[in-house]
């Protein structure tokens, strides 16, 4: 089953592309929810590279993915709760006018 090894290069390449798309999404969109979605996408890209390299470094790669997922879940939960609170206050989730924390 060494063919999985052969896939290492393309997998890492794909993870790079997905990560860039995620970043583009974060920069492009003003809606906070979509922002979170893009962050999730970036996390998935990272998971992909973890998995790809797990073939070389053993199962610890996959354990990492496992942890990344738990963190992502926690982050999503808290983030969305914050968004709910903001929405209740501002009636909008547009990033532009959530700027109270400034110099």
């Amino acid at each position: 089953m060494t063919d999985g090894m052969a896939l290492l290069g393309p997998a890492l390449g794909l993870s790079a592309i997905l990560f860039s798309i995620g970043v583009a999404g974060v920069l492009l969109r003003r809606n906070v929810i979509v922002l979170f979605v893009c962050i999730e996408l970036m996390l998935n890209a990272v998971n992909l590279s973890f998995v790809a390299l797990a073939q070389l470094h053993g199962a610890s790669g996959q354990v990492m993915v496992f942890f990344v997922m738990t963190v992502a879940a926690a982050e999503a939960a808290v983030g969305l709760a914050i968004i709910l609170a903001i929405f209740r206050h501002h009636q909008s989730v547009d990033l532009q006018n959530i700027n109270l924390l400034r110099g």
Partner: protein
Amino acid sequence: MLEAVFYVFAAVAVVTASMCILSRSAMSAVLWLTATMLSLAALYVLLSAEFIAAIQVLVYAGAVMVLFLFVVMLLNLGQATTDMRGPAALATTIVIAGLLAIQLFALWSYTPARLASEVAQAPQLSDPATLFAAGQIARDEAVSRGVVGAVAVPLFQVYLVPFEITSVLLLAAIVGAVVLAKRRL
């Protein structure tokens, strides 16, 4: 043959990801992301990480994305609101994302052999098989213990402490979410 399958799913993942960031409404963005996740699950299988693929589908695609859906519907953001930033933001995005992609795309040419040669100090040792024995052991484990066992052993032995910490993390997240989201305590 495996490459072909890989590239198909890779293409699907890229398309769905692009559609996700370009979609007009939040609802469609979430759904496209779910599709990307599923295609990734398929790729995990190709990379002989079957257990992770399952978890991906169950936990990530299932639970987290559903949570997103809930929030989107709760705030009835479904209708299309073009929240795309202005042309200036578009330009910066292209520049930054482009640069990032170029930088990271160099990873595409990383074969195990090249990785080994870079990692090993002494040039004569740069045979990937000997250096990355751990990968082979893991695969033998998977065969002997089954896919889930191969992941479970390091999870509960080597990484036991981080595992417990994540549980505390999740507890904190739950409490946080409840406190923040409730209207009046």
